[in-house]
């Protein structure tokens, strides 16, 4: 059995008022009556501070339904609820002068055993793009008797916000559990069901961001967002990053000044999105869209103008033969530079030690370059080739050798020049030595050489008495046949140096000649 208090506040005099206060708040409206059962007691109280007589009228569900008048400060009156069927009744409270009245509602529940509690099956939610969701308490059995009511609250394992409707407004949250139950009476309550509280919605990831190129040294970059959702906030971050570089709402341009790529490099950035609370987001968390874009910063301007260079002229060389200039190293630039050669004698160039001859190529800083061209077929003539590297040029002049000597011209007959010595063969007419002859003589005895396989190993074939050794007047002759082309002969002030770059041991017999 339970006891409930019903208090009536009254004030005396014309214009006074009457107002109920109930023990648990129920009873002040017809749709929220005070539920009582047979045998329950209800204590009628004249509120302290009342200045008039509290009068309770039209009682009908008590064992004694006589009117009750309680003077201010008077003793409370206790009545017992009579047994019976379900009955909704009202009590009228009056002030002393009966000037103002109020209604109190009280409902007697059906007799025990005639009410069947409902069975709750679940609590479900809709998922609107808004801050609040609607929870629906679902039943698998509705029960019978009494009044079907529902309760649903967040975090309260015994919800008691009873109402006749089965839907409730639940605010989205990052955590928590929603509990719900139903009942037919205060003692005929269903099981409790629960579900996770609806979480916040994330932003729309269907956004596109444009890539861009920026100049070397630029201090900012930008991207333009398209397909963004109005009202949502978008942020630029380094790909998979955690710090916003810049933000904006909806479509449009986003500029940022930090985490820019370095010169000559490209960086990848990612768009993150934040949904506002008005459309179901938490208003603070950015989520990755996986939509990326790039920003490329151009390389610094490079110097492709080499220092002035000079390939030495060549010659005199035999008429009609190919002459090769001594390679020079090209400096003064910090990037590849185009190079080409043109002019007389079908000139070609080669870069580095690759041995590839062509009319144009590119050259790296501090690499070597050489030019070759065919000498004129006429004696004592020149061919000029122009080597161009970037904006720099150099002319290489190849001079063909003079006629053999004297006035002998082609050398097919004894010369008539005034210099030199003429010696006749035994027939007295054939010249075996004449001013027309370019005579081949040996400068050194044949010498055996053996060069180690180590690249650069070398030996000097010393020559005495002749200091003007040049490609036009002297060379080394190798007696034995060899199939290598990387054992170069160079000339020094006192002889010839043979260098072995073949990668293998090099043996031969060699002697120097002049001509």
């Amino acid at each position, binding site marked *: 059995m339970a006891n409930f208090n019903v208090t009536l506040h009254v004030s005396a005099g014309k214009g006074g008022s009457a107002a109920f206060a109930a023990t648990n708040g129920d009873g002040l409206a017809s749709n929220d009556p005070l539920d009582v059962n047979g045998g329950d007691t209800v204590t009628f109280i004249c509120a302290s501070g009342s200045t008039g007589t509290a009068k309770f009228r039209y009682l009908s569900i008590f064992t004694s339904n006589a009117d009750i008048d309680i003077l201010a400060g008077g003793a409370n009156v206790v009545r017992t609820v009579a047994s019976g069927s379900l009955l909704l009744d009202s009590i009228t409270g009056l002030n002393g002068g009966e000037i103002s009245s109020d209604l109190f509602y009280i409902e007697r529940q059906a007799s025990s055993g005639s009410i069947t509690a409902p069975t709750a099956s679940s609590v479900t939610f809709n998922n609107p793009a808004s801050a609040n969701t609607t929870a629906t308490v679902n039943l698998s059995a509705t029960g019978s008797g009494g009044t079907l009511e529902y309760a649903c609250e967040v975090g309260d394992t015994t919800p008691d916000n009873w109402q006749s409707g089965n839907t409730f407004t639940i605010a989205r949250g990052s955590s928590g559990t929603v509990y719900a139950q139903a009942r037919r009476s205060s003692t005929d309550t269903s099981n409790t069901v629960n579900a996770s509280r609806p979480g916040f919605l994330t932003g729309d990831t269907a956004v596109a961001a444009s890539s861009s190129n920026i100049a070397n040294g630029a201090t900012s970059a930008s991207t333009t967002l398209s397909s963004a959702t109005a009202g949502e906030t978008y942020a630029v971050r380094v790909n998979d990053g955690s710090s916003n570089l810049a933000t904006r709402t909806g479509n449009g341009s986003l500029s940022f000044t930090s985490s820019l790529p370095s010169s000559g490099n490209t960086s990848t950035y990612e768009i993150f999105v934040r949904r506002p609370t008005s459309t179901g987001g938490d208003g603070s968390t950015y989520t990755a869209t996986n939509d990326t874009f790039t920003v490329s910063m151009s390389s610094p301007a490079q110097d492709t103008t080499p220092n002035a260079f000079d390939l030495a002229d060549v010659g005199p060389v035999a008429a*009609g033969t190919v002459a090769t200039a001594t390679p020079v190293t090209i400096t003064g630039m910090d990037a590849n530079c185009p190079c080409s050669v043109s002019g007389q004698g079908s000139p070609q160039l080669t870069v580095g030690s690759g041995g590839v001859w062509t009319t144009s190529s590119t050259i790296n800083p501090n690499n070597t370059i050489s030019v070759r061209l065919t000498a004129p077929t006429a004696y004592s003539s020149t061919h000029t080739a122009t080597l161009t590297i970037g904006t720099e040029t150099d002319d290489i002049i190849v001079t063909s050798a003079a*006629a053999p000597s004297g006035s002998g011209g082609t050398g097919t007959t004894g010369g008539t020049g005034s210099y030199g010595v003429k010696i006749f063969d*035994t027939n007295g*007419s054939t010249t075996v*030595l004449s*001013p027309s002859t370019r005579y*081949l003589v*040996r400068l050194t005895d044949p010498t055996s050489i053996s060069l180690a396989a180590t690249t650069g190993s070398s030996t000097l074939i010393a020559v005495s008495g002749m200091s003007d050794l040049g490609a036009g007047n002297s060379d080394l002759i190798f*007696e034995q046949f060899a*199939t290598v082309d990387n054992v170069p002969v160079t000339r020094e002030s006192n002889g010839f140096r043979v260098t072995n770059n073949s990668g293998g041991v090099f043996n031969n017999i060699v002697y120097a000649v002049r001509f």
Partner: protein
Amino acid sequence: MTYGITFETANGNVQIDSDTTNTGLIVLSAVASSNNVTFDPQKELVFAKPASTTYTNQRVAIRHPQNYGWSGAGNFTFEDSLGNAVLMNYIVAKWSNEQTAGNSGYGLQVYNSDGDLAFDSSLYTGNGGIGIIAFAAQQTLSGYGSFGVTSRMGLDTTKYYSMNNSYANGNDSVFFGVEFNKSASTANGSGGAGVYWLSYFTVYSFDGGGFGSYTNFISNFTPRFIAEGGSV
């Protein structure tokens, strides 16, 4: 120079210089239309040109005698890159200090400071002289032959070209020799008429990728000379 003699021509070419000359070159023989030559590569030089005047393109190199060991004289044959014998006009010249000084009682003998015979006019015995009219220094010819002009030694196919250090073995995959080309055509990259140094060897392979080959062109390992014989 404190003793001896020096002869220089008008343009400074040295004919005889007893101060620097170790030895001069004396013609031993001048032979027409032969496909072989006997000489000692350690003491003698051979200069040759095709005996025929009707060829268009003639490759030629010397093929070593079988089991030749780079010691003493050998009988070398003139062959093209396919192993065909080639008739050549040739001149054999020998360094004078490899010979015994003559004692004919006239002419000119020059000795250097070591006492070596630098020149001996008496060693010329009717075969004429030998004069160098052009040359290509070591490793200045590409070895591409008449393909382009990078390996051209001269334009005159009637001159004698040094044959020492050439090589043929009857197999077209290896050839180090001289290409006399009388065709003026420059089609297909040809350098046209002239005499070229042609040197290459081809490497063949057969592996999981199938049969393959590549050809290496070798620049002239020793200088090449163009000579004039007879009355010089």
